[in-house]
């Protein structure tokens, strides 16, 4: 990148800069005209110059030139106006000039702003583009947060400066020069004094500011370090808390902030010292004028009129001069910032842009073998990780790497670059090949997975998004907006690839379009055992039954199919269904009483304690006393169980009745019950006790509180609840109806229309398997799966488990039809048993699909060797043994 900011700006904005100079020059005309006008108004119509008699008129807007030799040429004689007419006309001209000046200013400012923003956009893009092309080793040296701060914050002032980069010095310099020349013309000696002082200012001030720049650079570096440390604290919070080092971190941050403070304070001191000297020099000039000029005037060597004119002219000098010096300060400031950033982004071994060029054409399969030729890889410290390894993998060959083949796999995956030797395909170095070939025909997966924030589906299909294949069609307003986007992108040197285009390479996944994509990738998801995870996420999601009316109807229909199926398999006790006339033992008492679900928990909790309806309803249905007794028993149990635990104990997550803070409240209530008797407890406390019952589930909490009689009463109360429910409460309850979709419930809640029994081991697992079957039978499977694809995986995929992320990464590699698959222990988070199963699944899936790609799999487990053609065994970075599996009796033995 261009190391000098002014040159960078000039290269990219030359035309605009010249145009704005012209506009600024033009804007000077009305600006100076408006200076002269007030004098004309006051002298002419107001004071009556030239209007000697009441009837006298003057020409308005007469245009005439005095030309040498030709005399006066009258272009337009103008209108003859009286005194009032002239006043009005001149005032209107003044107004017009105000408007014109304002418009010029408006145009210039917008233009300069746009210029700056475009340049900012260009530079930011260029920096990110460089990040995308950094060599792998560089990423170990930079902190992500620092890179982000540089791109986000540090280059920001550059945008503001760009507009003024050339206009300001031209304009201000011109003004200062004019004033200086004027002074010189009035009086040579006084002019010389003024020039001298200006020269002193021009020499001293920038020198003093050098230190300011040094401090500014330090400030930038320390601020960047701070942001790097803060992000380290966030990332490493587990380690910090685990080792009780939070105070060490506090000390470190405080020290850093102290340094930043010192630098900033130094900056202030210098800044205001410079300001003081600058102001002093500016003020000293008039002092010299008065003192020396006055002395000369007294001596009679200087005309008093000249002195007054010089002093008058001088008042126009300090303003532009000060602004010019400020501009210079800003220039140096941004230049330092720019140079700092450019330095951090200048890497010699940056990837050639050609390697990452967009290619929308399908890439031919790789015919040649993938080979390491005399490959040596070292780490940052210089120790050898891979020592002169040569290994060739033919297309279609299945090779297992054992005993430390990770580095070779990484080299094959272009994650590390060779120190010497190379990795070639058909004789060509893979680092020279375009990524549109290597990134499409070779797939790499390891256990070090990165999942992008977004939906699960986006992540699964991420490996197919190489180029915009089908343009998004825009209509009407959107079309013109798109046109604007393209033009702007071009003007700022950004690519105008449309992120809304269809980037998915369906062909690479063996599909013909979006419709059969899911069908094509299903075998892959099945093979890596991700389908069940996606399904589990899908059935837990809620959908809008209005938008997916047909699907919702299909789900409701499944309810009876599920019952039949469970009856047939003698698993009826797995789910306790919601029946309008029966108590559901697996649901809370509240749910049973409402025969519905709460849509607004906060409102509900409030209503339960304060709404008059609840105060009377229990009495009416004859449950008040029973519930009160039950509530006391619940409170006693809970207080006994949780009393000794600290309030932040994780066990409180299992406590649904109350929060940790409420334990002492209930302890106090129980105390009152014991000392005064149950009936004498205040009404408010009684309600608090009653409330507890609503969350009680007998098989879950096992306090033994429910009797048949109580359950029958609760069921009987349903009608009372339903009919007597006041309108203001109706909104927060959604009633269960056997033939209606529960909008606030998840898909699985809607299929079950009941609760899974608490005591069944893996009950939900079993139910899910059955439900999956039913989805398949009902033709809803892929639709449900698609809802799972909508699941938001969170930042860095944190809402998925490590195992799910690794399976996702493996799936994302396998989905793409490649010639070489490199799997670098991709499933470390899974149990050994499951890992083996996935490896076998992948082999049989590829076998069934008719694809015969080469597979290079780094294995820890010898039991799987039988699947491979060859085993390459490494030790201490050297290739120790490379032989066909059949020729290796020891491996065969281990495999059996």
């Amino acid at each position, binding site marked *: 990148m261009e190391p000098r900011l002014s040159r960078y700006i000039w290269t990219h904005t030359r035309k605009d800069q010249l145009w704005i100079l012209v506009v600024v020059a033009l804007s000077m005309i009305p600006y100076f005209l408006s200076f002269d006008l007030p004098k004309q108004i006051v002298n002419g119509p107001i004071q009556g110059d030239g209007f000697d008699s009441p009837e006298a008129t003057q020409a308005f807007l007469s245009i005439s030139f005095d030309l040498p030799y030709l005399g006066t040429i009258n272009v337009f004689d103008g209108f003859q106006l009286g005194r009032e007419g002239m006043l009005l006309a001149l005032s209107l001209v003044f107004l017009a000039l105000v408007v014109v000046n304002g418009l010029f200013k408006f145009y210039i400012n917008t233009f300069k702003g746009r210029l700056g923003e475009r340049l900012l956009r260009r530079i930011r893009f260029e920096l990110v583009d460089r990040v995308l092309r950094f060599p792998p080793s560089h990423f170990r040296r930079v902190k992500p947060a620092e890179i982000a701060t540089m791109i986000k914050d540090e280059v920001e002032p550059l945008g503001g400066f760009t507009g003024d980069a050339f206009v300001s010095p031209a304009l201000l310099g011109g003004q200062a020069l004019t004033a200086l020349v004027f002074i010189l013309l009035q009086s040579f000696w006084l002019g010389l004094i003024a020039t001298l002082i200006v020269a002193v200012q021009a020499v001293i001030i920038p020198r003093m500011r050098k230190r300011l720049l040094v401090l500014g650079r330090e400030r930038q570096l320390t601020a960047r370090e701070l942001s790097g440390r803060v992000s380290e604290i966030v990332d490493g919070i587990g380690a910090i808390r685990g080792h009780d080092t939070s105070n060490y971190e506090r000390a470190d941050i405080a020290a850093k902030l102290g340094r930043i403070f010192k630098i900033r304070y130094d900056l202030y001191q210098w800044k205001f010292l410079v300001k003081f000297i600058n102001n002093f020099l500016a003020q000293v000039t008039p002092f010299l004028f008065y003192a020396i000029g006055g002395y000369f005037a007294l001596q009679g060597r200087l005309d008093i009129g000249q002195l007054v004119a010089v002093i008058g002219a001088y008042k126009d000098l300090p303003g532009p001069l000060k602004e010019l010096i400020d501009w210079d300060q800003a220039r140096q400031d941004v230049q330092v910032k720019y140079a700092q950033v450019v330095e951090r982004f200048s890497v010699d071994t940056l990837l050639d842009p050609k390697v990452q060029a967009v290619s929308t054409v399908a890439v031919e399969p790789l015919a040649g073998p993938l080979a390491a030729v005399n490959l040596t890889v070292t780490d940052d410290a210089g120790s050898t990780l891979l020592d002169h390894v040569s290994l060739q993998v033919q297309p279609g060959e299945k090779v297992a790497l054992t005993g430390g083949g990770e580095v070779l796999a990484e080299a094959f995956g272009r994650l590390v670059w060779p120190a010497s030797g190379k990795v070639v395909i058909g004789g060509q170095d893979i680092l020279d090949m375009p990524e549109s070939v290597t990134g499409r025909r070779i797939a790499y997966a390891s256990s070090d997975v990165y999942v992008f924030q977004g939906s699960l589906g986006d992540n699964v299909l991420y490996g197919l998004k190489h180029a915009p294949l089908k343009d998004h069609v825009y209509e009407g307003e959107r079309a013109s907006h798109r046109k604007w986007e393209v033009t702007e992108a071009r003007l700022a040197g950004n690519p105008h690839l449309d992120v809304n285009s269809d980037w998915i390479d369906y062909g690479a996944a063996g599909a013909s379009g979006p419709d059969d994509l899911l069908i094509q990738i299903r075998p892959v998801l099945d093979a890596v055992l991700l389908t069940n995870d996606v399904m589990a996420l899908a059935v837990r999601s809620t959908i809008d039954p209005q938008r997916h009316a047909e699907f919702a109807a299909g789900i409701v229909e499944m309810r009876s199919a599920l019952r039949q199926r469970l009856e047939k398999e003698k698993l*009826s*006790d797995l789910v306790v269904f919601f029946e309008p006339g029966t108590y559901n*033992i697996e649901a809370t008492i509240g749910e049973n009483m409402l025969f519905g679900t709460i849509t607004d928990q906060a409102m509900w909790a409030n209503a339960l304690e304060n709404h008059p309806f609840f105060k009377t309803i229990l009495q009416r249905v004859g449950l008040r006393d029973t519930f009160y007794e039950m509530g006391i028993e619940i409170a006693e*149990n809970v207080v*006994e*169980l*949780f009393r*000794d*635990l*600290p309030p932040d*104990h*994780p*066990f409180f997550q*299992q406590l649904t009745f109350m929060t940790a803070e409420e334990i002492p409240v209930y302890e106090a209530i129980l105390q009152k019950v014991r000392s005064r008797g149950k009936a004498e407890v205040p009404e408010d406390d009684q309600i608090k006790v009653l409330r507890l019952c609503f969350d009680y589930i*007998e*098989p879950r*909490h*096992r*306090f*033994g509180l*429910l*009797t*048949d*009689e109580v*359950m029958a009463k609760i069921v009987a109360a349903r009608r009372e609840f339903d009919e007597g429910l006041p309108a203001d409460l109706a909104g927060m309850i959604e009633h269960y109806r056997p033939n209606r979709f529960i909008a606030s419930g998840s898909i699985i809640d809607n299929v079950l229309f009941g609760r899974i*029994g*608490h*005591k*069944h*081991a*893996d009950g939900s697992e079993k139910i899910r398997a059955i439900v999956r079957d039913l989805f398949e039978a009902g033709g809803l499977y892929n639709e449900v799966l698609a809802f799972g694809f909508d699941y938001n995986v969170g930042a860095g995929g944190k809402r998925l488990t490590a195992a799910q992320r690794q399976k996702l990464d493996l799936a994302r590699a396998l989905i793409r039809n490649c010639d070489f698959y490199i799997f670098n222990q991709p499933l470390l988070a899974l*149990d*050994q*048993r499951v890992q083996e199963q996935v490896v076998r699944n992948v082999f049989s899936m590829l076998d069934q699909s008719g694809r015969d790609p080469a597979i290079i799999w780094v294995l820890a487990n010898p039991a799987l060797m039988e699947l491979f053609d060859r085993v390459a065994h490494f030790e201490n970075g050297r290739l120790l043994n490379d032989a066909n599996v059949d020729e290796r009796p020891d491996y065969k033995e281990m495999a059996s």
Partner: protein
Amino acid sequence: MVPPRCGSQFAPDGNSETRIVMLLKDEVEMLRRITLFSGLPPAKLKLLAFTSDRVMYSAGEALFYQGDIGDAAYVILSGKAEVLINAAGGPFKIAEVEQNSIVGEIAILCNTPRTATVRTSTPLEALRIRKDDFLKLLADFPEMAVEIMRVLADRLAQTTAELSEARGRLEPVDA
């Protein structure tokens, strides 16, 4: 009025007409009969029971598999299960466990993969004690940890004794 529960009895098949529910206090009784927990105060056993899940298996289901990372121990409340290890010729039964015994307890004390597979041979009901919960309890109540340590030390002494006895029997053969 017929109470829907009756003491410490329960129906292993789980679908009898009158629901018979085992209560928290019955589970506490059950836990007390396990040597590992027998010395713990009842209040702590109650908390242990409350944080644990009651789970039911039908015959032939696996509680866990050999080689998996263990996350829970199981106290068998009713029913029987086989302890199997993987051998060259397929799974090999090494023991049988039944009511009042605990399986998988090693896994909740240290991070080892399961050393055996446990599969039910009859319908079985168990209390699943999750590792995290159990360790949390030990951390919060040191008297529990001491008690558990005592039981483990007893067991170690016993195993050591058995080992030397077995060695003593083997040596003449080797010689």
